[in-house]
């Protein structure tokens, strides 16, 4: 499973969630994480942003299988990802 995390330097919620993303990544060594800035990384253009940032896109064999959007706590991220998989 690959998790793409879309953030931006101008997004205060993304900045606020920096530590949460780090812990979430450490809690899931079985998944590969890719952090992309929507303005600085050209690859980010491959994904649709939706209405709010940050966005976590869960990909299985290159296909989007789940998406978590907006500011969340670590518990929220764990609960939502556990529920999806």
């Amino acid at each position: 499973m690959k998790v793409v995390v879309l953030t931006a330097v101008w997004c205060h919620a993304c900045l606020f969630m920096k530590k949460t993303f780090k812990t979430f990544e450490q809690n899931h060594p079985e998944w590969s994480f890719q952090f992309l800035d929507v303005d600085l990384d050209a690859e980010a253009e491959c994904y649709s942003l939706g209405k709010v940032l940050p966005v976590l896109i869960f990909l299985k064999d290159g296909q989007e299988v789940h998406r978590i959007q907006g500011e969340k706590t670590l518990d929220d991220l764990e609960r939502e990802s556990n529920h999806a998989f």
Partner: protein
Amino acid sequence: MRFKIVSLLLVLGLSVFLPLNIQATTKTTNLYFFHAQGCLTCAAESEFLSTLLEKDPNLKLYSYELAFDQDNQEFAKKISELLPNPINSTPTLVIGQKVIVGFVSGTTDLEIQESIDYAQNNVIKDVIGEVLGIAEVTNGTSQTTSQVNLPFFGKVEAKSISLPLLAIVLGTLDGFNPCAMWVLLLLISMLFHLEEQWKKWFLGSIFLLTTAIMYLMFMVSWLNITLLFGTISTLRWLIGALAIGGGGFNLYRYFTTEPGCEVIDDRKRKKISVRIRQIFSQPVFVLASLGVMALAISVNLVELICSAGLPVLFTQVLSLNQLSGFEYGVYMLLYLAMFIADDVIIFALAMKTSQVSGISTKYARTAHLVGGILMILLGILMVIKPEWLMLNFG
């Protein structure tokens, strides 16, 4: 015999009340009205005073035209020294020691009536009457304003607590509205590429200072509009309706938007990013500083509409309270300090730690909820009970 005793008691009983009744019905209350020819607010107050004089024969009006009459100007200057507030604008009405500046239909008329009632039911010091020789020299009492009893502080004027409190609450709520915060964060992230520390501090501070000045100018302009057209009730109703509408929109946003950063329009975001890069690529530092100022002005002009409701509401409440120029300035600066505080903290922390910290959107959401409720309440009061916003709860 019994009839004589009853009659005597009746006469004695009546005599207790008689002098009071005589005093209450024959006491003349002098009103001193300072106005200017061509002043529309003065005309509105003059019309109101005429209706009062028709209703109450115990009122006597002394009018002083100040725009063209030099003697009256001298007189106003002389008695200003004896009054708690100087007469430096028209219309001004003086009742005893109470100085009522300006006239807003629906608010000032109530204040005038309240002051007349107070003057008629109490022995007041008629300062101007004493100078003119038409009133007896007395110690008298001056009309008190609403007071609240606070632990440790004792009796404090309600106005002196509530207006600063309102400035702090509304300014803080307005500050958490993250309309222009994304530009600050973008700017900070690019400031990190500069080598010299002082340049980072300087350019960031210029951005914040320009933002603050822009906001202050907007508030001052709006205050002047409300002071100038304050007599028009329609304007008050319009602002009340705007506050109710804005409050409803805030509540709508609270319930419908997800916590997180709203994705800003791609073109707008890229345009600002390019502008910031151009600013930092300036070889001359002065030009870079001017560029940051221009950026702050343009961004805040566009984003002003996003949070215009709260400052408009606050300046309207200030104008209803008819304060001195100094007091208006102090309250607006207090509002501004609270408004800009979160941006200053984010910037200072980023500069100190070389890392940008974000603020949870939960605060912004809470600000939408609390701000929305407060705006609706203040909007309703502005339309149906404006005197409550002047802290006259009678």
